[in-house]
């Protein structure tokens, strides 16, 4: 944990250097400053970032394994959308977001809302690992207690209940507006599913956030292209997702949602955008990492049996 802290401090320093570099670029109105000092740091930062990314990749693998064990033990839960969102969650909670799991009510914290609330396996696995609650409590997933099938705010780290799709973006926007009103610089991250975008209420919130120029609101679409019943294109096609958000007045970034450096870059870019909210459309694979779950709608909300778990863990470990 200590090494992680020093790494993140150093990471912050490097981000600062990179930003300074950008400013110099902008001031000189040139492509790249030819300063040896900055170039040296850039090389160093490249090496460092590679290490950091490797650590985050390892964390994603660990989270995938643990969340599958969680669903297996509870004999119910949602593996598909948890596995597709794993890198996004890892980039947010192990790198990008400003929060303190020991002080979940810290007023200046960045807010996170899992609008696709059925993906508690990945949420709870990450929350326990970063220290919002004891790992021991994971045993109670989907049993009496705070680890309900869909999140509720009795659990530290959960800002608001979700589970009925289409509500998280409005709630997140309310938090973003409150932050502006209070002169705070926190940001609000809302993770949505592409199937969820069928809900009309999402687009009410999309219009509002553009209207209020809420640049402290960042929506991330886990665009795994598969919902409970079928592939999303056969239910109600939501593509082109990024173009739709752009047409509604948002800044849109489209990335591979399993590419950790791309996610980190997108989050950093989003933080720089002024005067409009940002959506990161993260193209992902439902059930990512487990061959028999990938792209399969039947693994939307089903627990693996003993044999299936064994195979899944072998694949993830292999």
């Amino acid at each position, binding site marked *: 944990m200590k090494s992680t802290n020093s790494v993140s401090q150093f990471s912050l320093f490097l981000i600062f250097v990179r930003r300074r570099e950008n400013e110099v670029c902008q001031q000189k109105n040139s492509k790249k400053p030819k300063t040896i000092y900055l170039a040296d740091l850039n090389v160093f930062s490249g090496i460092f970032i590679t290490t950091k990314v490797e650590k985050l990749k390892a964390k994603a693998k660990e989270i995938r394994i643990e969340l599958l064990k969680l669903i297996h033990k509870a004999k119910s839960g949602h593996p598909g959308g948890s596995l597709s969102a794993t890198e996004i969650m890892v980039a947010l909670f192990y790198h990008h977001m400003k929060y303190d799991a020991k002080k979940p009510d810290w007023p200046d914290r960045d807010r996170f809302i899992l609008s696709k609330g059925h993906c508690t396996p990945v949420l709870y696995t990450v929350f326990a690992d970063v220290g919002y609650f004891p790992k021991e409590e994971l045993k109670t997933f989907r049993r009496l207690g705070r680890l309900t099938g869909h999140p*509720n705010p009795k659990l530290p780290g959960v800002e608001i209940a979700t589970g009925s799709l289409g*509500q998280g973006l*409005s709630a997140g926007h309310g938090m973003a507006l409150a932050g502006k009103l209070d002169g705070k610089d926190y940001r609000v991250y809302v993770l949505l599913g592409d199937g969820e975008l069928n809900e009309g209420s999402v687009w009410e919130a999309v219009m509002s956030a553009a209207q209020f120029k809420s640049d402290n609101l960042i929506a991330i679409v886990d665009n795994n292209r598969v919902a409970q019943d079928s592939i999303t294109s056969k239910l109600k096609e939501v593509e082109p997702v990024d173009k739709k958000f752009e047409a509604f007045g948002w800044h849109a970034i489209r990335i591979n949602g399993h590419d950790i450096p791309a996610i980190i870059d997108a989050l950093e870019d989003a933080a720089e955008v002024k005067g409009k909210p940002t959506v990161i459309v993260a193209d992902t694979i439902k059930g990512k990492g487990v061959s028999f779950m990938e792209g399969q709608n039947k693994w939307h909300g089903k627990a693996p049996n003993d044999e299936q778990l064994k195979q899944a863990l072998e694949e993830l470990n292999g």
Partner: protein
Amino acid sequence: MAKAATRDGYGNGLLKIGGNKDVVVLDAGVSDSTRSEKFKEKYPERFFNMGISEMDMVGTAAGFAKCGKIPFASSFASFLMGRTQDHQLVSVAYSESNVKLIASHAGVAIGEDGPTAQAVNDVGMARAMPTMIVIEPADAVEAEKVVEFLVGHKGPAYVRLGRPEVETIYDDSYKFKLGKASLLKGGGDAAIIASGIMVQESLKAAELLKNEGIEAAVVNMSSIKPIDEKAIVDAAKTGVLIAAQDHNIYGGLGDAVAAVIAKKTLDVKFDVVGIKDGFAESDSQEVLFKKYGMDSEAIANAVKKAVSQK
């Protein structure tokens, strides 16, 4: 006697509490009708017009509440309640968000706009919402006092307001208490338990009955949930209870009173005045109340019938 609509009491109440920096007001594009525009004029930085999107308004209000704000979110009862049930359940009630839903234009009484704007099932929906309190003030003064009360009450609330101007019953010394009814007129032969605009009709009914030698008490049950059980027990001593509501006979104040009668096994003749499981049409409040059996005469007739059966 002065007249004012309960929605005007909301606008005035917002001005009284506006000094509290935690108060934010949201509206769904009808702020001139709900009277939340009064707040907008004085505190524009804390007023948020969410446009014609009630679900988004309720969800946004919940987000505000989760950051320590006290949001008042207003629209017409039909749309605010009818369209946002799921957001109320998940983002507000289950999330323990301190959101105040203020619904104007309730009931058949709004008249000419017709059934799509005449909310007649909203109280039933609000009562069934876990942890939500339900209040329907009888006049503008009470509405204003309710707004002041809500700032100090933690938890979700549904307040039902009307468009028509009604006689002002209370003066500024009135204090609203959650779960407390107020006896507006005594009477030993029967008791009418009413809320909102039906309090006015009930007072008129009591006058009609007096001419026929029947002394009917009138109870303002503005606190529909939690309801004042003691007031109902006391009123039942007359042997006749009539619940009067501008709402479907199912799900509203009448059902709430009936539940108390059953729970306390009260020995009374009981009936409900309201819209009888159907829809009204367009016309003035007076014409509709008469046609659909909700005016003072209909209330008086219900009382007389019950008294004759004692």
